């Protein structure tokens, strides 16, 4: 890793009609304020969104692909964990 490179940041954008910030890519910046400005310039040129989150890449810990099976396969066949066996009275409305 080059010593002279600015730290790397991961960029998340929430679109105008969206509810969650989505990961759109990464960029380099010297600090958080510059990261916001750079994210605005690099990733919102075509009205992609109305809210930006920038996170230093080092702060993100990702699950290892090698552990995919033990982390996620067990939940694949546990139908009793889904909340679909209740009769909901009409007065409650949409849940």
């Amino acid at each position, binding site marked *: 890793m080059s010593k002279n490179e*600015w730290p790397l940041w991961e960029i998340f954008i929430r679109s105008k009609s969206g509810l969650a910030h989505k990961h759109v890519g990464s*960029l*380099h*910046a*010297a600090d958080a*304020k*510059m990261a916001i*400005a*750079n994210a*605005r*310039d*690099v990733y919102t*040129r075509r009205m992609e969104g109305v809210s930006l989150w920038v996170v230093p890449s080092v702060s993100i810990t990702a699950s290892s692909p090698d552990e995919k099976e033990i982390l996620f396969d067990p939940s694949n066949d546990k139908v009793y964990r889904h909340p679909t066996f209740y009769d909901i009275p009409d007065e409650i409305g949409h849940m």
Partner: protein
Amino acid sequence: MASDHLLHLADNALILGQRLAEWCGHGPVLEEDIALTNTALDYIGQATFLYKYAAESEGQGRDEDQLAFLRDAWDYKNSLIVELPNGDYAQTVTRQFLFSAWYYLYLRNLENSSDEFLRGFAEKSIKEVRYHLQHSSDWVKRLGDGTEESHRRMNDAIRELWPFTGEMFTSAEFEKAASEAGVAPQPELLLAEWRQIVETVFTEATLKMPEDGFMHLGGKVGKHTEYLGYILSDLQFLQRAYPNSKW
């Protein structure tokens, strides 16, 4: 003849946009390359808007392209500061900061213009310019209060550009007329607040406010530096060599 006042605003935008576009592919880092070219596009967009209005108002059958691509240097009314070379990054951000601070105050005032079109133009453009001002201010602070080298380059840039700041606050005849008609602000009245903005940022950047000395004038009446000719030869070559060519 298209209104000198409209041409002044349009030419400012076109020439500054053209200068910033020269950074395309040459920025110090990728993110700044994109930031500067975004800014250039903001200005080209503003120029298009203003040239269209100028061409319509003069009613001589010219369109915005003819105004942009077929006038000679002595017909351009931009302030001299926008045609100066980009220099190093310190010079580019300093020029952007000094100009944007003026432009922001100008547009804020223009939002109350008696001209409906200019009111709409100001409301839309001020959002772009507030961002340019914020972005360039941040860079002035980072470079001013940075390393010994960046600090020195900032001082060089300020010394180079300061003599061109006076023109932004010196009315040409058409500006006196425009302000009397309530169309646009009188530039002199923006100076005090501009100095406050500049001084606040310079102080945080550990940079000294320069002494005012000789101020260059002439851009607004078509007396330009030798630089404008070179900019126009890049900008206008295609249309002049192959008239009416289209994509």
